[in-house]
């Protein structure tokens, strides 16, 4: 493939030089969508959705709890996906993507645990029960910590990329096994005193609020990851001409900003 052919194909966005400005242009739009959807979701959740018959008002935690839990699992899968792409196709950008995703995934994972604990206290009477879902979520958080710690501990970016990719894939293979084993363990040890089944019927407005919040979490994730990946790209590509141009522009923008304020 010649350079001109390459620059015309969609694949060119896999090259850092094209991806960097694209990410900068797209991120604010996703952020704006996230804000709008969050407001809509909160309005649905707090003012339209009715009081739950059995749980009262406290169930309203669900509008962040479930999206956070979904996001944390999904982000891990996306991380593993980019890691696999990076290892197979040898594209540097893929590794950077998976590393930019990890902190956000870990934050959502923690939030799912935190909101789960606050929800659990009034409904189960304890902040923490060793329920299968909660326990798997906790282990997922540890997997995130492992990935982040490993990629940060390695100085050489090439090695950090690949080592991170391997541990992300090993983790992804193990997630279903962990979930299965924790479920098994849970059914053996959990007494009948604590019933964790959610109310089977959910008002349509509750579901709508939850889904809107889930999409908002998606948009937020995309925006923040695009913002996080940009400086990472600059750092990796610091030897190239185009990064120099980008940095000069940045410098001018900062100078203009200062002049305007003075």
């Amino acid at each position, binding site marked *: 493939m010649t350079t001109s052919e390459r620059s015309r194909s969609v694949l060119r966005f896999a090259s850092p030089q094209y991806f960097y400005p694209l990410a900068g242009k797209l991120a604010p739009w996703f952020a704006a969508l996230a804000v709008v959807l969050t407001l809509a979701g909160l309005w649905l959740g707090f003012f339209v959705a009715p009081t739950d018959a059995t749980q009262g008002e406290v169930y309203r935690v669900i509008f962040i709890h479930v999206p956070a839990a979904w996001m944390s699992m999904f982000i891990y899968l996306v991380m593993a996906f980019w890691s696999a792409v990076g290892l197979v196709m040898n594209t540097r950008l893929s590794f950077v993507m998976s590393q930019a995703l990890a902190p956000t995934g870990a934050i959502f994972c923690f939030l799912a645990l935190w909101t789960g604990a606050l929800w659990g206290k009034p409904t189960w009477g304890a902040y923490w029960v060793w329920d299968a879902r909660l326990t798997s979520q906790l*282990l997922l958080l*540890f*997997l995130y*910590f*492992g990935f982040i*710690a*490993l990629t940060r*501990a*390695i100085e050489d970016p*090439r*090695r950090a990329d*690949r*080592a991170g990719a*391997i*541990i992300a*894939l*090993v*983790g992804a*293979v*193990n997630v279903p*096994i*962990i979930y*299965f*084993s*924790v479920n*098994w*363990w849970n059914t*053996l040890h959990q007494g009948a005193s604590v019933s964790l089944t959610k109310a089977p019927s959910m008002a349509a407005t509750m579901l709508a609020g939850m889904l809107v919040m889930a999409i908002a979490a998606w948009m937020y994730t995309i925006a923040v990851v695009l913002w996080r990946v940009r400086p990472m790209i600059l750092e990796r590509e610091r030897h190239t001409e185009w990064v120099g141009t980008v940095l000069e522009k940045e410098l001018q923008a900062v100078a203009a900003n200062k002049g305007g304020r003075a």
Partner: protein
Amino acid sequence: MLSTFLAVLRRDLLLAWRGRADVLVTLAFFVIVVCLFPFGVGAEPNQLRAIAPGVLWVAALLACLLSLHRLFAQDYADGTLEQLLLSREPAAVWVMAKVLAFWLSTGLPVIAVAPAMALLLDLEQGGLSVLVLSLTLGTPILTLLGAVGAALTLGLRGGGMLLALLVLPLFVPVLIFGAGAVEAEVSGSGALAHLLLLGGGLAGAVALAPWACAAALRISTE
């Protein structure tokens, strides 16, 4: 291929024999961790009996973890690893040999001592054979998974703690089925399902982990 496997296995076992002090340290660690529990939870026999399977398994798991960082460290330091990676043999073969030698020199002694420690915790006699069996099926999985982590953290500052952080979440299923097997046997519901799952896990780990470990070693030595 078999000759490479046997040669590496022999060499590593010989090295392990020469450095047998390390093996004794692992073993002592296992014994001491088990002995700590009565001090922590009280020496009430019924309580000890109830926690015995979990305590023995957690102690074995930690003993396994403690020694893991040694798996490739020496070969990495003296350049043997690079030579092996340059050889034309598939890396998974000699990785498997190294892991097996490592398990024989650290896992096996722990398994041998485990029944004695079980008696200290007053585990019922019927559980002893299942304990040994579950450890025999389970600790190789720990070593195989741990080998991937050891390969990834090779030569890193604070590698030991990092290794623990990486592999401990992956050890959880093994712990659940291993300790669960003993408990199921003692409580009379039969350990077969647990042991079969452990066996399946071992087969899966043997099939996949050496490849992942070989890839990780390549990345770490580049």
